[in-house]
């Protein structure tokens, strides 16, 4: 039976880079996938593109490509990534430029264009899933609308000879499904195979989260060498069978437990995991350790895809202002609570217009280090040595947001005794909502960029 090995080189945009190099060097892989596009990243990238039409792709694209392109080119490893963000063509041109500068002249780089469905969304004025309202009602706060594309166009690019495939918004598991469809010639209506491939893509897409990252709990779930965490490799058979493993000697662990946690990560109904290409069914998946750091995954299924694509809509939601300040020693907790009361009253007195406010107390040993912080400060043993006050609020303008942090900062001279380390911030909030778009309204195409 034919088998391919797919490495997962990034689980989010800021992820570590060395594990991807390790995969390319020692992973014996044919495909290297970088999943770098968070829910709101496309909206932020769209803002960057509006300021500079040559930008709008992932800010770490150059660093990642420089790190892996020479190795991948020499070994024939194909790269698939969503680092195109809001501008896959610019990302492809940039990658071609990097390839040329590295002396790699024969690479074929493909951009997948067409996830931007802002026009279609505005014309259709679709309802927003998360709250009452429609796209049109967002008015000039609307920034972007990008459909989660399926694996089809990426598989097509690979079959047309692409060495690097760069997409914008696509479903994360589809980044992994594309090499399977390409390598094995899976039919786009073989729901069970697409379901199995989706299980594999879902397990691999968060990189280190299946090899021991986001898992360790000392004394209960110990994981070796997290500072050198190895990223996962999926060995996928043409029948959709899957073994998850990692590079021998790298940090972390692949166990039945890490795989079970990742199987359910960000899943709602496990029997209906909605994807652009299939409705995957995880409910009968079985997980079995067959050797150290080798786990076999079986039982994935699928049913027919739905008629719609999920669209991620970026919009300017509000502004958030924040302030923090710390108190230590005996009575720290009481002074922290007093500080919160004062700020609460000040925000009322001075008429700060916030639609939502939050008052928190944080702290272990940030002020005076572990030794001093271990001092018994109270007859009541549960009293913390230090607390950090945190006040945040949502406003309709930056000016109002600034006032929240200011009120916390004024605790220095107007608040309880011994307040230190004040900090404040105010920022705009680009948030993301969703709509469902009839799938025929998105028409993705493949564009090649020559080196």
């Amino acid at each position, binding site marked *: 039976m034919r088998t391919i090995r797919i490495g997962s080189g990034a689980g989010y945009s800021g992820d570590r880079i060395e594990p991807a190099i390790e995969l390319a060097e020692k992973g014996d892989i044919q495909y290297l996938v970088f999943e770098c596009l968070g829910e709101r990243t496309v909206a932020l990238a769209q803002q960057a593109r509006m300021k500079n039409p040559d930008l709008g792709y992932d800010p770490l694209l150059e660093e990642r490509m420089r790190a892996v392109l020479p190795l991948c080119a020499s070994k024939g490893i194909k790269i698939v990534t969503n680092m195109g963000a809001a501008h896959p063509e610019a990302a492809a041109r940039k990658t071609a430029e990097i390839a040329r500068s590295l002396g790699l002249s024969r690479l074929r780089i493909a951009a997948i264009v067409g996830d931007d469905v802002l026009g279609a969304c505005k014309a259709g004025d679709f309802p927003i899933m998360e709250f009452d309202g429609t796209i049109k009602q967002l008015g000039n706060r609307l920034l972007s609308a990008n459909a989660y594309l399926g694996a089809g166009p990426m598989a097509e690019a690979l079959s047309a000879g692409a060495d690097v495939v760069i997409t914008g918004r696509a479903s994360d598991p589809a980044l992994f499904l594309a090499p399977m469809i390409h390598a094995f010639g899976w039919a786009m209506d073989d729901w069970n195979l697409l379901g199995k491939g989706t299980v594999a893509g879902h397990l691999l897409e968060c990189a280190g989260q299946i090899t021991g990252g986001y898992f360790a709990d000392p004394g209960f779930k110990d994981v070796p060498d997290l500072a050198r965490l190895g990223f996962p490799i999926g060995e996928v058979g043409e029948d959709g069978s899957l073994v998850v493993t990692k590079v021998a000697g790298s940090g972390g662990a692949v166990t039945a437990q890490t795989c079970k946690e990742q199987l359910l990560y960000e899943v709602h109904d496990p029997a209906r995991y909605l994807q652009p290409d299939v409705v995957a069914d995880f409910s009968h998946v079985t997980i079995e350790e067959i050797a150290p750091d080798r786990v076999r995954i079986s039982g994935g299924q699928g049913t027919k895809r739905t008629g719609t694509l999920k669209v991620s809509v970026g919009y300017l939601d509000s502004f958030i202002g924040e302030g923090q300040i710390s108190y230590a020693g005996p009575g720290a907790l009481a002074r922290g609570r007093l500080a919160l009361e004062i700020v609460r009253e000040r925000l009322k007195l001075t008429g700060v217009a916030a639609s*939502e406010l939050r008052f928190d107390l944080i702290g272990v040993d940030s002020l005076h280090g572990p030794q001093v912080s271990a001092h018994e400060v109270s007859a009541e043993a549960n009293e913390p040595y230090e607390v950090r006050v945190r006040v945040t609020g949502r406003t309709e303008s930056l000016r109002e947001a600034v006032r929240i942090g200011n009120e916390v900062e004024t605790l220095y001279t107007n608040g309880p005794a011994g307040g230190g380390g004040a900090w404040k911030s105010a920022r705009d909030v680009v948030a993301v909502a969703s709509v469902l778009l009839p799938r025929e309204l998105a028409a993705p195409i493949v564009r090649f960029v020559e080196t």
Partner: protein
Amino acid sequence: MKLREIAHSRTGDKGNTSNISVIAYRSEHYPLLLAQVTAERVRAHFAGVVEGEVVRYELPDIAALNFVMGQTLGGGVTRSLALDAHGKSLSSALLDLDIQDTLGS
């Protein structure tokens, strides 16, 4: 005993919805989870955090439960005021749940 003794857990986020898996270390403990880690108990445990419905999905083949908790993430990950906007730390909080070492609940 605490749930932490017999199960492990991971939180995921989508919009304003959080999901928490609860996975038995040993499959013989799955009936304890089924009987005692109910949607109602999870909702009560997170009173003040979860504002929506809690739905429980059962995965006997991997001895796991999946809890989907609506209106939990301060209006959504991308706009929440919370320090942990994703709610990633909720899984550890759930493991504090008390479990009776018998099948009666």
